[in-house]
């Protein structure tokens, strides 16, 4: 009888322990994660008014940096910020109105074409959409 009780106790105990080992991941999974949403193909890069004319902002686009430019004329343009030479991150140079790579002075125009320096290829351009106050950037499909 003692043995039987022991087995029952052991059975119930190990069952509960296993259940707990399974419920723990489930509960953690259901709790909201730190970053609330998945990064999408279309990214909210900035809000209207974030960018003064002739300034730019680097943002994360999927797993690569991208750059949103508000030109002197107030036109919104977006590019991949990865230089086609040695994958450095490019910046917007307000004085010349061009994209400029600090590593080897590569320069791109606002159509993404190489103006000067070592970059072999134009930089990728993205589509900019304004929805209400949000500026969305997406890849050209």
């Amino acid at each position, binding site marked *: 009888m003692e043995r039987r009780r022991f087995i029952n106790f052991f059975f119930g105990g190990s*069952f509960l322990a*296993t259940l707990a080992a399974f419920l723990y991941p489930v509960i953690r999974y259901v709790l909201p994660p730190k970053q609330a949403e998945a990064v999408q193909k279309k990214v909210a890069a900035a809000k209207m008014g974030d960018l003064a004319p002739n300034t730019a902002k680097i943002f994360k686009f999927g797993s690569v940096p991208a750059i949103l430019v508000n030109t002197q004329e107030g036109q919104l343009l977006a590019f991949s910020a990865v230089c086609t030479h040695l994958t450095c991150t490019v910046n917007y140079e307000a004085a010349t109105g061009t994209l400029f790579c600090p590593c*080897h002075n590569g320069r791109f125009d606002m159509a993404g074409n190489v103006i000067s320096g070592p970059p*072999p290829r134009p930089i990728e351009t993205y589509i900019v959409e304004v929805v209400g106050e949000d500026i969305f950037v997406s890849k050209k499909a």
Partner: protein
Amino acid sequence: MTKKIFSIAVFSALSLLPLAAFAQKNSCLDCHSGLEAELKAPAMSFAQDIHQQFGLTCKDCHGGNPAQASEDKAKDKTFKGAPKRTQIPEFCASCHSDAAYMRTFNPRLRVDQFSQYETSKHGQLLKKGDAKVAVCTDCHGVHGIQTAKFPKSATFPWNIPQTCGRCHADADYMKPYGISTDQLTKYKDSVHAHALFEKKDMSAPTCNSCHGNHGAFPPEVKSIGSVCRQCHPSTGELFAKSPHKKAFDDMGQSECEACHGNHKIERPTTAMLGTTDKAVCVQCHDKGSKGYQAAGELKTLLDGFDARIQKEGATLVLAEKKGVEVSEPAYRLQEVNTVLVSAKNLVHGLALDEIRKKLAEGEQTLADVGKASAAALDEAKFRRKGLIIATFFLALFGLALFLKIRSMRKPA
């Protein structure tokens, strides 16, 4: 069956149509099409020629009167025939140096090829009567001339090394000139050739990018730096500000070439720096000198930073192999790499403080990545630990089930 024969007939008739169109008013083609070998060749290959595409015909270069059927009449006094090899540049230049005439075909086409050619080594030797040197046709072809924009033309970027190499890599041919013939093989090992051939990057420099095309000439010690600056301006700027500038000028050393070589410019690494035998610094800086010490410091600085990037990168790869998602820190590590690449370029300015300042910009991110990669490894460990715990409980439960099953069986 008859249908098939008919379609073949129609097809061949159509393919002969261009020739037929010529034949009606071009007695040159009439005759030459019927001739043999090299007298037939012009008639055949001219169909692909860029001049043909612009509506030019035989007589526009060779003169004569193609409207006449008989050979005597066709070869009237305007007939020039084939120019001698030494006369070819002038022959082509009669049109190509005529800005007003060239404008009618392509207003953007340059018209200084001939004057450039006269200043080139080829042109100079030709003037002295050396007929072995390159003339227009050696690179551009004769009756099948294509623009440099056509991928199959000998003057298209990735065909140029072979085009120049046809003479310059031929030891027998080059013997009288006493210059080396290893440029092509050396170039093929260079980072530029790698970009051109492997990455199919057409903006990569080939022979003519540094030597010029029509005015081809070896760049002199003084001008090498300017040649490289065409694509590497920031590097040149940094160099001009560095103490090397004056020292190189005083010694009569060429700028970039002294360290990077010429035809075989390899992908630069920090192995070029420092005080080992492979380092370029020790060519001038003797042991114990200030430059020698700085060379060592430069290398330690960059290699140290690079090693840390490599280490974090390797940790991330390891964590990824163990199944942990690390795209975020991998993305951040890319930023640090930007800093390193910039710092490596700053080496040309020789200002150690500038380099230190640059590297410091990446410190924070590198530290963050370090934390993230350590966390990723911890996560992998945590998963294994979790598995062990869960498996342990499962094993206990399995054992309990087993005991249950056994104890059930007994009374029965």
